[in-house]
């Protein structure tokens, strides 16, 4: 079974966005728990932050496939 070291690098690169997405949803959950009526206001903001943090992981996976050793 073959493979490149790129994928290991991608795994390492995904740690950062992983932590970021965790923090975003932690804040969203605790915000909703404290003030449930704000849930509909917080949801787009949380999803937006999630999408922006995820962009880093996405660029990582694109580069992992594109860059050849």
């Amino acid at each position, binding site marked *: 079974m073959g*493979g490149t070291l790129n994928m290991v690098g991608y795994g390492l690169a995904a740690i950062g966005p992983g932590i970021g997405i965790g923090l975003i949803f932690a804040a969203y959950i605790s915000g909703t728990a404290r003030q449930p009526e704000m849930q509909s206001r917080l949801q*787009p903001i949380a999803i*937006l932050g999630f999408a922006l943090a995820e*962009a880093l992981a*996405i*660029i990582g*996976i*694109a580069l992992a496939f594109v860059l050849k050793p």
Partner: protein
Amino acid sequence: MTHVSVDGMVGIAAGNGFQAPGPADFEFPDIFNGNQVLLAKSSLLLVLGAIVVAAFFLITTRRLRIVPSKPQYFSEEAYSFVRNGIAQDIIGGRDYMRFVPLLTTMFFFILVNNLFGLVPFLQFAPFSRAGFAYALAGMVWVVYNGVGIARHGFFPYLKLQTVPAGVPAWILPLLVPLEFLSNLIIRPITLSLRLFANMFAGHLLLTLFATGGAYLLFHATGSFLVKPAGILSFILGILVGFLELIVSVLQAYVFTLLTATYIQGSLAAEH
């Protein structure tokens, strides 16, 4: 799962062990066997997606009643989800109604196309080919820049996008190129890559578990642990299928939400 099982069988029949699925699995041959006609399974699915969305909304809203029938109720709910949940919340003001058709079409077009990845016999999400996602993001780029230029004029719009308000002057030489890069060049790239890479990674994961499970179950020899591992791989594949369902809906939502955010950003007076 037609092409998946075919790929798996090809790899095994060649007698060189298991071949992990890769980007090559996403390339379909031309139907008319020439490069001039851009007809392949992926582009035909895209057309089918457009037809499904158009037919759904045309049929369910053909005879509108004050007390809606079930299909009419369903399509009204779907429409008002985008209108109130995305367009009104993000763009707001008096402007948002102009963009509701674009956003609604975009949301359901992406949603239906992503769900094709889970429909038996279709089994392919067109947006796991980068080119289609680039086209969609290019359209969004033209829309939000065009709207901003029409609202503010060319140079004021450029100033709006690149010069943040309330920043000391000495840091502007550093900030203006960065803002220009991130607001006008990186945006469409991340927008398209996000959609593409999510669908790509999901489909690759499904393919890996399906072909890997088949290989472990029927072809691999050696340890007695091989067959249980194959069964485990199939179970994980099914679970990843459900994950894909969530990701499909979420990516359609995120794409539409970001489009609305970009439009709002270029319509805003100051930021």
